[in-house]
């Protein structure tokens, strides 16, 4: 891990009208790390992702990526700088084929413009071939779960678990450095959940991505995390290794209520 974090949030706040979703949050993710964000519903986890990817602009604080402020940049610029995400409520391009879903995500790091596309210049053809190969490589990462015959099917024909996989494949096709996974195991059965746990580790090993993940399933969090950050009501209440955070009384209180803490 280098001494300069890849992503750094400094006192980030977000309010919708009078409602404060995040309040002075400090967070850093080092290169090559896998950091999990946990917290009860409404703790501000997805808002955090929305702030990092530029969907919302924070009302206070600053967000640095590779030491450079990305606050106020449009989302596609942030993605092009190397941050990609998946969505908790799957947002695939449903009526496009599986392959096209992934190919579309290569837009940010490819170049052929209007005229070159209409003239089919050799450079454009080469680039098009590269995009196709990239997409197939990203899909092949999921082994027999997203095998070749599915590539030409429309995305809506995929099962729920496969849609989650396709979301990850699509995000990696933007060639990111940092991958934000929003509840990758939500709605999966135990077998699939175990698979996802292994997959996230594999993403770091083989893909070299740094990963920030929101997850509710504590087995997944335990299995993958270098570090865990717990949020409640938009405030960081604990940070550290899985064991430290999982046993932190404030975290237990946030999840189970005050009386549960008294009983333990």
């Amino acid at each position: 891990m280098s001494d300069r974090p890849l992503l750094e949030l400094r006192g980030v706040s977000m309010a919708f009208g009078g409602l404060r979703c995040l309040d002075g949050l400090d967070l850093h993710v080092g290169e090559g790390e896998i950091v999990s964000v946990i917290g009860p519903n409404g703790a501000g986890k997805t808002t955090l992702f929305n702030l990092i990817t530029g969907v919302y602009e924070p009302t206070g604080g600053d967000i640095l990526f590779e030491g450079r402020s990305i606050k106020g940049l449009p989302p596609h610029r942030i993605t092009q700088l190397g941050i990609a995400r998946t969505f908790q409520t799957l947002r695939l391009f449903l009526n496009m084929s599986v392959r096209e879903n992934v190919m579309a995500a290569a837009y940010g790091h490819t170049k052929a413009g209007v005229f070159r596309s209409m003239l089919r210049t050799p450079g454009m053809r080469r680039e098009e071939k590269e995009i196709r190969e990239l997409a197939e490589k990203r899909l092949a990462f999921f082994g027999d779960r997203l095998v070749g015959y599915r590539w030409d099917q429309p995305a809506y024909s995929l099962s729920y678990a496969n849609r989650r996989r396709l979301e990850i494949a699509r995000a990696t096709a933007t060639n990111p450095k940092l991958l934000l996974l929003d509840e990758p195991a939500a709605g999966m059965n135990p077998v699939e959940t175990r698979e996802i746990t292994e997959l996230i580790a594999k993403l770091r090993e083989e893909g070299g991505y740094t990963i920030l993940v929101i997850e509710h399933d504590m087995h997944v969090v335990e299995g993958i995390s270098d570090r865990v950050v717990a949020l409640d009501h938009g405030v960081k209440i604990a940070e550290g290794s899985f064991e430290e955070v999982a046993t932190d009384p404030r975290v237990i209180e946030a999840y189970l209520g005050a009386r549960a803490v008294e009983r333990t």
Partner: protein
Amino acid sequence: MDYDKLFQTVVNSATLGSTYALIALGYTMVYGILKLLNFAHGDVFMIGAYVGLGVLTAAGGPLDPSFSPWLVLVLMALAAMAACALLGVSIERFAYRPLRDAPRITPLISALGVSFFLSNSAQLLFGAEHRTYDTFNIAGGKLYEPAVTLGSFSISWLRVITVVSAIVLMVVLWYLVTRTRIGKAMRATAIDRDAAAMMGIDIDRVIMFAFLLAGGLAGAAGVLFALRTDLFPQMGFTPGLFAFTAAVIGGIGSIPGAMLGGYLLGTVEALTVTYVTVWVGLPVGLSNFVIFSLLIVFMLFRPQGILGRPEIRKV
């Protein structure tokens, strides 16, 4: 300063605004429940105007009505309201209901088709030529005589009738929507259709009721409007467009918003026609240019309208 001109502009605003408000209410109720821009609504309004003409002709025409002219006016409005309510409900039943769960663009195109069908049907049946109620001859020109005189200013019966009947209808609507069971069900459905259905509200009935009210108001608006202008098959288009915008300006889905927006738009139109084009130095024919440009700017900067709340982008 020409006070007479200013006064006439104010009266014009109120008259125009009354019609727009009545039509806008129909757009807003339907949009509130179905999230559908009912393009055909302007044409329902047009049909209302023609139904009024039919009643007037059946009663012997403006010169020699066999009944009292006031009774004929009331009959015209009632017949138009009934016919348009029925028309509105049928359009919903046959052109929109099968598409209720389809992608939003589908019922929108269907609405365009209905609109096109209605205006062309009107042309088939009533001809393309401009018709008129010949209001000058109704009750021997009584409608153009001043009803209210304030010093040197006066307001004609025609304008008093338009504004007063619009206000009466809006009060009735207000009562129906806030005080009756079905009205409350309608508001609940507008907030969350699925939740309302789960609470035991008969959604089909509620939607039908909304179209019934919308059609009735459009029918009345058609007769009131046609008292002052010509009738022709495409007459519904521009008022329809203005009224939809009025609904948007007020905050689509909001009933007081539609009323406010209607009067506001009436004012903008009256002011633009009388003053703005003169100040800018544009030909009067270009008043539409000014109005539509203003509307685009408004839509861009406050699409949620005056009484609406901005939507937060959900991810």
